[in-house]
């Protein structure tokens, strides 16, 4: 059978349907404009921040030397000190997250729509938690060090303060997103408001709380590592010291054990989450 040419007018197709292929003029101009702005800002940044390719090349060569010295990681006899410090870091993260969750639990109710009558308390709670959230954990660490002195206690307080804001926002959003019908069911069988919350709202909302808290625990382990750099306890101080004295094999050892700790916590928190949510799922 002779091959049929399926597109007898092939040569004109692109021109006739140019709009479909390239988009109309409006869309094209908008795309070009966006790209131009992005490029312009990038050029401004590169110039103002004094990015120079010579500097980058030099620094990269140095970096390669350091990376070479990092292998193999070697604690050099300080393994016990580092491991203890790592334990301190994990403890700081654990307590900070716990305290923040406990304090944010009631605040989350205050900040959620539909729990309280009137808007003033809710607005105040929201602004308060936003300002706590806007200040970075590291800045809180500096402030708390000035108040309670150097050491891990300042670290716990720093993580607690910055996370109260985050948890209040997350908890209030979870409460607002909950289905009101179970609470209505409880009310219809004669329950008080407390019963409504305990049996209608909490079973929906607690799994969400729990998974947020566990996620933040893992993230806080990393934050706790960093606030150690400014003196709030934990392994951060050792890390900064080893970097400043160029002991690269210790640096890589410390980074490895921190990564290992984060991985273990991630694994454990997944198991805990599944165990608790599995429990709740089986209650249905």
């Amino acid at each position, binding site marked *: 059978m002779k091959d049929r040419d399926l597109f007898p007018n092939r040569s004109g197709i692109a021109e006739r349907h140019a709009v479909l292929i390239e988009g109309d003029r409006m869309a094209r101009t908008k795309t070009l404009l966006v790209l131009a702005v992005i490029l312009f800002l990038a050029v401004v940044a590169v110039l103002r921040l004094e990015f120079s390719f010579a500097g980058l090349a030099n620094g990269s060569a140095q*970096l390669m030397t*350091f990376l070479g010295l990092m292998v193999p990681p070697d604690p050099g006899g300080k393994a016990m000190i580092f491991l203890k410090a790592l334990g301190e870091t994990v403890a700081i993260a654990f307590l900070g997250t716990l305290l923040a969750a406990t304090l944010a639990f009631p605040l989350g109710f205050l900040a959620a729509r539909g729990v309280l009558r009137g808007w003033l308390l809710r607005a105040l709670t929201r602004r308060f938690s936003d300002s706590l959230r806007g200040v970075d954990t*590291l800045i809180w660490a500096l402030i708390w060090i000035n108040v309670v002195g150097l050491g*891990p206690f300042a670290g*716990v307080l720093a993580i607690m303060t910055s996370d109260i804001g985050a948890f209040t926002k997350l908890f209030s959003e979870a409460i607002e997103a909950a289905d009101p019908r179970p609470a209505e069911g409880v009310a219809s069988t004669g329950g008080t408001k407390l019963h409504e919350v305990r049996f209608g709202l909490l079973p929906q909302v607690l799994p969400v709380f729990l998974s947020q808290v566990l996620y933040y625990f893992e993230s806080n382990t990393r934050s706790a590592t960093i606030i150690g*750099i400014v003196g709030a*306890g934990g392994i951060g101080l050792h890390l900064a010291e080893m970097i*400043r004295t160029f002991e690269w094999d210790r*640096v890589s050892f410390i980074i490895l054990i921190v990564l290992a700790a984060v991985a273990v916590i991630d694994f454990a928190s997944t198991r805990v989450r599944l165990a608790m949510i599995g429990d709740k799922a089986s209650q249905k």
Partner: protein
Amino acid sequence: MSAALTRLPAHQIAPLLDGYGREIARRRRASAMGLVVFALCVLAAGWVAEVEPRKFVENLPKFTSYIGRLFVLDDGRLVLADPLEWYWGLGKWLAKLGDTLLIAYLGTLIGGIGAFLSCFGASANLATGPLMRFLTRRALEFCRTVPELVFALLFVVAFGLGPVPGVLAIAIHTYGALGKLFFEVVENIDMKPVEGAIASGASRWQAIRYAAVPQVLSNFASYALLRFEINVRGAAVMGFVGAGGIGQDLIEAVRKFYYSDVSAILCLVIATVMLIDLGTERLRHRLIAAERKA
């Protein structure tokens, strides 16, 4: 008509109630065990982290007085009584804030471009093979898990003080974080346009460019804006280790007890973060709305 509930005879109810009681008791025991373990963890952590509730209570007034002291000028007046004196360094602080924003922007841009190029190799549907997927995902994970400030410390030693190490540190962390978000988006696309492109003879990159990218671009942009917002916060503290931006002024003010400067800079930082939050939220809503229309 009245509905009657039939009750089982007593000898049939008893084992049912027993079974129920046993189940509840078992579950209560498990919860109690969990609580005990948890309480032990809390106590152990408290001991390790040198937590003393008494010290906290003693120092709480110190905290409030410190915060209060932040809002008092050196000569004893409240900061709001003389805003010009409070913001004596407004010019240089605004310049440093601008630098901070540029650091966050450049870091997000570089990291985002890298993530865009790598995300297809990390996705289950568009990677060339399991080895590439594994390697790319591990690389993304590493860049994401090591804290930004650790990269910044390393880079300050390698590249010297200044904003360059800050930009690079943010870029690498953003590469990991955005890479993960991007490849999860890519795994959820409709594969039919990709199959169509490949069927009409496109190479892998052409198929990606014409079939996959249009589906994911607005999602990518939305995540990139979110990341920029987070990176502004990160860039503000990069200065703590000498990597440029307003963090340097802030840590200097805290350490040298220039109380009113601390509050001035903190308020500037908080205001900037809030403005960026608002701006990026509105941009993201428009992107999501445009995506829904398409």
